[in-house]
C-alpha cells in the first residue's frame, strides 16, 4: 500500500457495545490526539478515505454498512475493523440477531464473522475494547509509521520423549510434585487471584528449594519465609506465602499418611 498522508475517516457502529466507540473517542481526546497524524473524522462517507467499523454487524446494520462502503470514493477505500466484534463477531458471533450466513459459521480457523461478511477489511485491530495505543498502532501501520509485528504460528506438539520436527514436551523442574503444584496454584486463586499467583508461587518454590537442602526443611522453610517478608512488604503477598507454607505441609502430611496406611494394607494383604 502506498504511504498515506492525511486520511479522512468515517466512523460507523455496527451494533457495538460502546466500549470501542468510547476508545475511538478517547483517541481524539487530548492524551492521544489522533489528529496530529493527519486523521480527520468526517461526517460523510463520500468524503472519507477510510471507514472505521466497530461492532459485530447486527442484521439491521448490514445494509447501511454496505451502503456507506459503496458511497466512499473508490480509492483508497480502506476499511478498519476496530475491536474483537468487528474483527470476527466477538462473543456474539453466532447469535440470531447477527448477520449469519449459516448457523455453523464462525467456527473455522479464521473465525470468520463480523463486518467482513459484507465488506473487505484492510486492517484488523482486535481488542475488547482495543486501548487507544492499540488503535493508534493500527492507524500508524496504515500510515506506514509502524511495522506489522504479529505472525501466525503452527506448532507440532511432539509426544513426550520424542525429538525431531516439532516442539518437544517439558514439564518444568520443580522442587515439589506436580500434583502439589497444581493444587497450590488452584488454591492460590482464592487468595491473591489468578494474576499474582504465579509470581508468588515461583518465589515460594525458590524458598522451598533452599529449604529442602536443609536437614530440617520445615523449620528452615518457616525461617526463609519470615526472611522473605523483610524484602516483600506487601501484606497480601505475606498472607499468600504463609498460606502456601501451611497448605504445602498439610498436603505433604496427608499424602504421606495415606501412603503409609496403604503400604501397611498392601503388606498385610501380601502376607
Amino acid at each position, binding site marked *: 500500500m502506498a504511504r498515506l498522508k492525511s486520511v479522512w475517516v468515517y466512523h460507523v457502529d455496527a451494533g457495538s457495545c460502546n466500549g470501542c466507540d468510547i476508545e475511538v473517542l478517547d483517541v481524539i481526546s487530548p492524551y492521544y490526539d489522533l489528529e496530529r497524524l493527519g486523521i480527520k473524522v468526517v461526517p460523510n462517507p463520500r468524503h472519507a478515505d477510510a471507514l472505521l467499523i466497530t461492532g459485530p454487524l447486527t442484521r439491521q446494520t448490514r445494509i447501511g454498512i454496505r451502503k456507506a462502503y459503496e458511497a466512499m470514493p473508490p480509492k483508497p477505500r480502506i476499511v478498519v475493523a476496530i475491536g474483537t466484534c468487528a474483527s470476527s463477531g466477538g462473543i456474539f458471533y453466532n447469535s440470531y440477531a447477527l448477520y449469519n450466513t449459516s448457523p455453523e459459521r464462525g467456527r473455522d*480457523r479464521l473465525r470468520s464473522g463480523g463486518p467482513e461478511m459484507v465488506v473487505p477489511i*484492510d486492517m484488523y485491530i482486535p481488542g475488547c475494547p482495543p486501548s487507544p495505543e492499540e488503535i493508534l498502532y493500527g492507524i500508524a501501520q496504515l500510515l506506514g509509521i509502524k511495522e506489522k509485528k504479529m505472525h501466525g504460528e503452527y*506448532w507440532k*506438539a511432539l509426544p513426550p520423549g520424542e525429538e525431531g520436527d516439532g516442539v518437544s514436551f517439558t*514439564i518444568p523442574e520443580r522442587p515439589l510434585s506436580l500434583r502439589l503444584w497444581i493444587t497450590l496454584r488452584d488454591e492460590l486463586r482464592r487468595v491473591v487471584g489468578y494474576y499474582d499467583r*504465579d509470581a508468588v508461587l515461583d518465589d515460594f518454590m525458590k524458598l522451598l528449594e533452599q529449604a529442602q537442602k536443609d536437614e530440617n526443611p520445615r523449620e528452615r522453610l518457616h525461617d526463609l519465609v519470615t526472611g522473605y517478608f523483610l524484602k516483600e512488604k506487601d501484606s497480601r503477598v505475606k498472607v499468600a506465602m504463609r498460606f502456601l507454607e501451611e497448605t504445602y505441609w498439610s498436603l505433604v502430611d496427608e499424602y504421606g499418611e495415606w501412603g503409609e496406611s496403604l503400604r501397611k494394607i498392601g503388606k498385610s494383604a501380601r502376607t
Partner: protein
Amino acid sequence: MAESVSYTEKLKAWNRKEVEKIGEKAPVTTPYPFIDIEKPPEYRGIPHINPEKCVGCGACVNACPPDALIMEWDKEHGVKRLTYNAARCIRCARCIEVCPTGAMEPTTRFEIATNSKEDLVEVVEHRLAYCEECGEYLDFTERQIEYVKNILPKEIFDMYALEDRMKLTQDAKMRVTVEKLRELEGVEYPAYLLAKRGDE
C-alpha cells in the same frame, strides 16, 4: 534470591515513561507512535499458548466464552489441533486461569493490529494416543497420559499397575482388567461386563 527487588516493588516501579518524557515539551499528548512504549505489567494482552507445556486437555476450550479457542478433531490422522485466534479473543483471561499446566501465558502485547487474520492464529497440533489393542485413536493425547502419570501421587498409587492400561480405550481397559483379575486371582467374569461388551 539473586534478585534484590521484590515482586510488588517491581510492579510498583513501573510508570508511564512517555508521560514523564512529555512533561516538559508537550504538556499532555503522548509521542506514540513515534516512540516505542510498553503497556503496564498488569495489562491483559492476548494470551499465548506455550507449545512446550500444552498437553491438549481442552480446559481452556471449555472455559472460553467467545470460542476463540476451539479444538479441531481429526481422528483419522490421529491428531487434534488446539486453535487460538486473537481476532475472536475478548481477553477475559479465563484460559490462563483454568489451564492446569500453565501453558496459557499472559502477555502485555498490544501491537497486534494486522491486515490479515492469518497472523492472529496460533495452532498447536497434538498427536492422539493410539490403542494397540483396538487399533484406534483415543480421545486424549500422549502428553496427557504423561501428565496424568506425573500427577498421580506416587505415595499412594503403584505406578506399574496402571502403566499398561493407560493407552487403552474404555472397552479394552475393561477387558484387560477383567482378564488380569481372572488370571491372577481366579475371579469369574462378572455377568454385567460380558453383557455390556455384547460379544459373547
